[in-house]
């Protein structure tokens, strides 16, 4: 049965390898500083007894003061999962480093987050809109995106 790793344990291990990267934890979630994200991702993937080689999903949530990116990770060999979150403050041009170098599965998911939520990923090879057309004004999933009819 897949076991969700304890957030405190994971945060401790991350801070051992990259001090200061994990800022808070609660239950099974760990919050990570955005700049440290690629390093933490590589650490989680390559450490043999963590082995989070499978990126399940990248989600973005618009809590009006900040955008929160949620990374669900899975280790198939050890049958464990963990949730890494990161906060990105500011509404004009928010951006976060990309994890495409660590997990190729992030490629299309990060493009979707840019398209619908407006969070750019630095280092992504093809940062273009994917579901909407290039000239679409705005980012629909944001809370302040006006809909046409009420």
């Amino acid at each position, binding site marked *: *049965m*897949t*076991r969700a790793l304890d957030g405190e344990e994971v945060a401790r291990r991350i801070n051992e390898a990259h001090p200061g990267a994990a800022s808070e934890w609660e239950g099974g979630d760990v919050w990570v500083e955005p700049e440290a994200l690629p390093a933490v991702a590589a650490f989680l993937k390559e450490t043999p007894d963590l082995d989070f*080689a499978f990126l399940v999903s990248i989600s973005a949530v618009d809590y009006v003061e900040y955008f929160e990116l949620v990374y669900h990770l899975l280790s*198939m*060999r*050890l*049958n*464990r999962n963990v949730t890494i979150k990161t906060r990105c403050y500011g509404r004009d041009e928010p951006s976060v480093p990309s994890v495409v170098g660590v997990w190729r599965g992030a490629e299309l998911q990060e493009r979707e987050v840019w398209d619908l939520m407006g969070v750019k990923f630095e280092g992504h090879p093809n940062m273009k809109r994917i579901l909407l057309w290039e000239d679409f004004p705005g980012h629909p999933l944001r809370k302040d995106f006006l809909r046409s009819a009420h």
Partner: protein
Amino acid sequence: MDFGGLHRLFTDFLPAGWEWIAFAVAGFLLSFAVINVMIGLTAVYTWFERRALGRFQTRLGPNRWGPFGLFQPLADVLKLITKEDVIPAVADKIAFTLAPIVLLVPGFLVVAVLPVGAESFLGELNVGILFVIGVTGVSTLAIFMGAWGSRNKYAMFGALRAVAMLISYEVPMALALTGVVITAGSLALLDIVTEQAVPFALVQPLGFIIFVTAALAEMNRTPFDLVEGESELAGGYITEFSGMKFGIFQLAEFMAPIVMSALATVLFLAGTKGWAPVPGLVWFALKAFLVLFFLLWVRATWPRLRIDQVMAFAWKGLLPLALLNMFMVALQVQLLQDPTTGELTSGDLWRMAAFNWPLAIGSIVVAANVLGQRRISRRPAAPSPLANMTAEGD
């Protein structure tokens, strides 16, 4: 009643010096008969194919127009005639307009020389087989004209594949036919029919199989219908044609199996021979129908091959078999024929059959294995160590 007979009939009525009228009238009547009969047969065949395919696919096929959908071809023709004939602005108008016609005409020409009944429509043609092979090659040109005239990338893809494939399959087809010519001792189609005391399909099974396979490829039918693979190119060389031009392409495409079946019947299944009192024409129709049904059956059942696999099959599979067939038949005829007259009795033909059947089966089995296409369908699968579903997570 063939062309010669019509010509003489009309000449008798005319004063001297006006024979050319008789020629023209006889020619016109003959063409009228051939074209209308063939188009009528093709229309009936389209109905038959659609209903038979429907039954293969556990569905009904056309059943709205007329009893059992018999007026469906009429509905199709009416629809196509009333559609707008769109010619792309950048198209090469001459090639574009002529392509359907060039595809259609060879079918009529071949039928005109086939011996249905005592003689063919056009009378005795002593180089019948040569004429048939030459004329069927013209359809390749038509496909390329259609694609070139359309100025369309999709069409060019289809046409290039088509030309490569058609040229490759002419060779085994012609070689299979040489076996027939050697056994019959003549190029004339009527002689070939008369010589078949035993049908050549029994005497040279390998030649028959090669001919039918190559004919499937020549007609761009499954499993060689990659030229117009709807699931790949959305139409291939036909993409830009609409209205009656498309209609003529379809007509030509559905006429080809009828022509090829008739040809196969003449060459391999002893044409109009059969047991009295049933007339020869009925036997001919029955045998042609059997070949036609087989072609349809293959279309309903098998998937299609890729172009490089098609080419490999032609050059590495059919060509050696066709050469083998030709040499073996030539050897047998040389040994068995009467030294003075060069004739083969039906007993000789049966002896040839007895030798050729094991040869055919053996050579096909050997070729299938030697071509190295034995793919193991079930390989044992070992789970990758990268994932372990039963790990307890600790």
